[in-house]
């Protein structure tokens, strides 16, 4: 199956090659230290043909990645947008530092950012985006271009979204299930990451204490390798923890659209009802109009016809709106569902592979253990 737009990753090699510390003035004119990442891109054809052109490169900092992602979230609300690596180190166990400037953290973040770019570049819809391309290719002026799209205005307010969650009358069953799933995914992966961190901490303690026996038991250098692999595994889990949030965002958007549609429909229905009442003179439902009419007398024929006219116009508008919203909703649901399927397949594939790699890692640990203790036994035998 050929996916549209996956072209970008086929055409271009993307990597986040390096990280560097910079000093600069921030938005409130205070000197600060921050890290920038080098994005390198190279046409794949050139590499395949044996040429070795120098890659195009530019520097970006984490906040720019965040801006890009926010733009994508607003512009493509039906897409499960790939998450960024965590802003601050969480689920840390004591050997790891929670410091953002820590070289290990920076390195893991570099890997995470590269992963983000690759995921976006391989997405059928997202990879086509001009802003994304611009992000990869043009260093200066990118921020201005993003703001010019006016995406921030399109962003839904949190309050509206929350409102919608509680007031949707006919939620789509599939999306409700998806919402539950994303909540569960978030909760189980958090729990797993928490426990894993504690286990890693304890295991490190065991290895360290063995070092007190003597050189034979210095697991020393191999511990660091093992721990690095463990952190890599944790990062893979974290990615899906954050993906759960992205999933939730799509569900939220759907709820909002659904709610707006329902509101438009309700509005239309009530307007139609008013028209009927006005035309036939019967008051079926309580309204202030009815009350005032009773108190202050009937309207004139002219007044009534004027009102009817207004209502007719409003109804036509309303019908347009309902049609529009219905189409919007249907489009959204269709596109969202396509992306859901894609995401689900990706998740199952990635996580299964992560688990298998975890098993391979454990096998490596066991083999090292066998080596160390078989060696120790020999030493003891020679005592």
């Amino acid at each position, binding site marked *: 199956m050929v996916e549209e737009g996956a072209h970008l990753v086929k055409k271009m090699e993307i990597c986040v090659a390096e990280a560097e510390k910079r000093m600069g003035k921030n938005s409130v004119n205070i000197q600060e230290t921050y890290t920038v990442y080098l994005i390198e891109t190279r046409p794949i054809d050139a590499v395949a043909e044996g040429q070795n052109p120098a890659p195009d490169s530019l520097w970006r900092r984490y906040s720019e990645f965040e801006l890009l992602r926010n733009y994508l979230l607003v512009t493509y609300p039906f897409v499960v947008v790939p998450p960024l690596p965590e802003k601050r180190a969480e689920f840390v166990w004591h050997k790891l530092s929670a410091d953002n400037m820590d070289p290990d953290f920076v390195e893991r973040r570099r890997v995470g950012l590269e*992963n983000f770019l690759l995921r976006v570049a391989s997405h059928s819809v997202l990879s086509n985006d001009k802003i994304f391309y611009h992000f990869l290719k043009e260093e200066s002026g990118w921020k201005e271009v993003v703001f010019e799209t006016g995406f921030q205005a399109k962003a839904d307010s949190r309050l509206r979204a929350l409102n919608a969650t509680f007031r949707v009358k006919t939620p789509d069953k599939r999306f409700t299930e998806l919402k539950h799933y994303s909540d569960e995914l978030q909760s*189980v992966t958090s729990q797993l990451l928490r426990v894993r961190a504690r286990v890693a901490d304890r295991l490190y*303690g065991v290895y360290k204490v063995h070092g007190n026996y003597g*050189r034979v038991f210095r697991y020393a250098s191999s511990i660091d390798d093992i721990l690095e692999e463990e952190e890599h595994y944790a990062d893979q889990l974290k990615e899906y923890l954050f993906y759960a949030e992205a999933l939730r965002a799509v569900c939220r958007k759907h709820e909002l659209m659904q709610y707006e549609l329902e509101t438009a429909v309700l509005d239309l229905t009530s307007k139609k009802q008013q028209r009927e009442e006005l035309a036939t003179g019967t008051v079926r439902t309580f309204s202030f109009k009815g009350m005032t009419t009773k108190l202050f007398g009937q309207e004139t024929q002219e007044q009534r016809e004027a009102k009817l006219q207004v209502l007719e116009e409003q109804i036509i508008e309303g019908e347009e709106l309902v049609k529009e919203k219905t189409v919007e909703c249907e489009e959204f649901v269709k596109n969202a569902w396509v992306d859901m399927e894609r995401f689900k397949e990706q998740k199952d594939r990635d996580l299964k592979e992560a688990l298998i790699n975890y098993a391979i890692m454990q096998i490596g640990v066991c083999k090292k253990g066998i080596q160390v203790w078989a060696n120790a036994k020999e030493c*003891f035998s020679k005592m």
Partner: protein
Amino acid sequence: MSGITVDPAVSCAPAQEISADLSGQMLELDEDDDLEVFSKDSTLSDGSLFNASMPTSPASMVNQLEEDVDTKDIFITVDNPESHVTAIETFITYRVLTKTTRSEFDLCEYEVRRRYQDFLWLKGKLEEAHPTLIVHPLPEKFVMKGMVERFNDDFIETRRKALHKFLNRIADHPILSCSEDFKIFLTAQAWELTSHKKQGPGFLSRMGDTVRAVANTVRGVKNRPEEFATIQEYVDTFAQKITSLDRVTQRILKEQKEYLEELKEYGPAYTLWSGSEEELVEPLKGVAGCIDRCCKETEEQVNHLAESLVPALHEYVLCAETLKAVLRRRDNIQAEYETKNETLANKKADREALKEEIEKLEDKMECANNALKVDWSRWQRSMREDVKTAFIHTAEKNVDYYEKCLAVWESFLLSQGSGLDAESSREQPQAPEEMTKEVSLQAT
């Protein structure tokens, strides 16, 4: 490898010197002299009848050592702890079961109940009779740290095992196992033991011995022979090293236990997740299963540490104290002799009586020194064997642990039908970018 064994450079030299000396002596002494050495001094023969199984010379003593291993003729077990409550106190007794073919025992089998106090008494008697022999230590009287309950099951079990070892070590010892007190300990009924305990040197004379011993300690020994000085150094170094080994091992046990506790929560976290998934149920449950099985193996590993290695090392921490006491007692004997010798130079009267006393003391000292030398090399051999075995056993257990865990994970991989075999476990896991590149290529 530094931490595990006492520095071979220190341990080998004196041991070799001692054995060389000993073998030289063995060749020179002849039968008649030996008989006299042992019968002359009542403290060495326990005032008991001379019996055939008692080694008569250092030579036969060494032979006995080698025979003991193959022709063990006494088997002792300590088991079945029971609690006894009286108006005054609560205490535990242990069943001591003896099976033997030795001729000095009337029956082949004896079953008695003994309490810790009785073991303490036995140890005291043995040390009294053989001040320079190395008696295997008893488990501690009081528990210093950690435990509140004196009658906690773990505590009783640990003590039982140590008491069992104590009696068996005595049974294995060529000289100590012939002790009359030992025999009575194994065979006498409760009231018989109590009445036997009441015999022996009275309180006042024991006081006198203690005072003399203290006086001699204060005075100190003047010309400690080189070989014993070397042993003293060795013992001091050994004490340091074994204490730190013991401490490290206890630390490891503690860390392993804490690791196990966290590990127990880890498997369930995967199982919990599998409840939300469809495609991933199998691999998630698979991983959960693996972790749970490894958890069981870890538990076994922890148990081994707690029940084998830690007690084995702790025993030798206590041994270090025993050794120091033995060396002190030897010094005291020499000090006593030296004091008397000095008095000889000063006093004019009663030279004959003094000379006889001095001769006796000289014999006593020589016997003590010889006994110590032989027992020293015996002890060293035994110690090396024990510590070595304990560590080898632990290493084997650990290899076993990792092999079992390895099998668990490998069978998981197989079940996932991944083409990855054991070879690829050496490769680095794929970085996410490579993974994604592949994913995206697969998608097109």
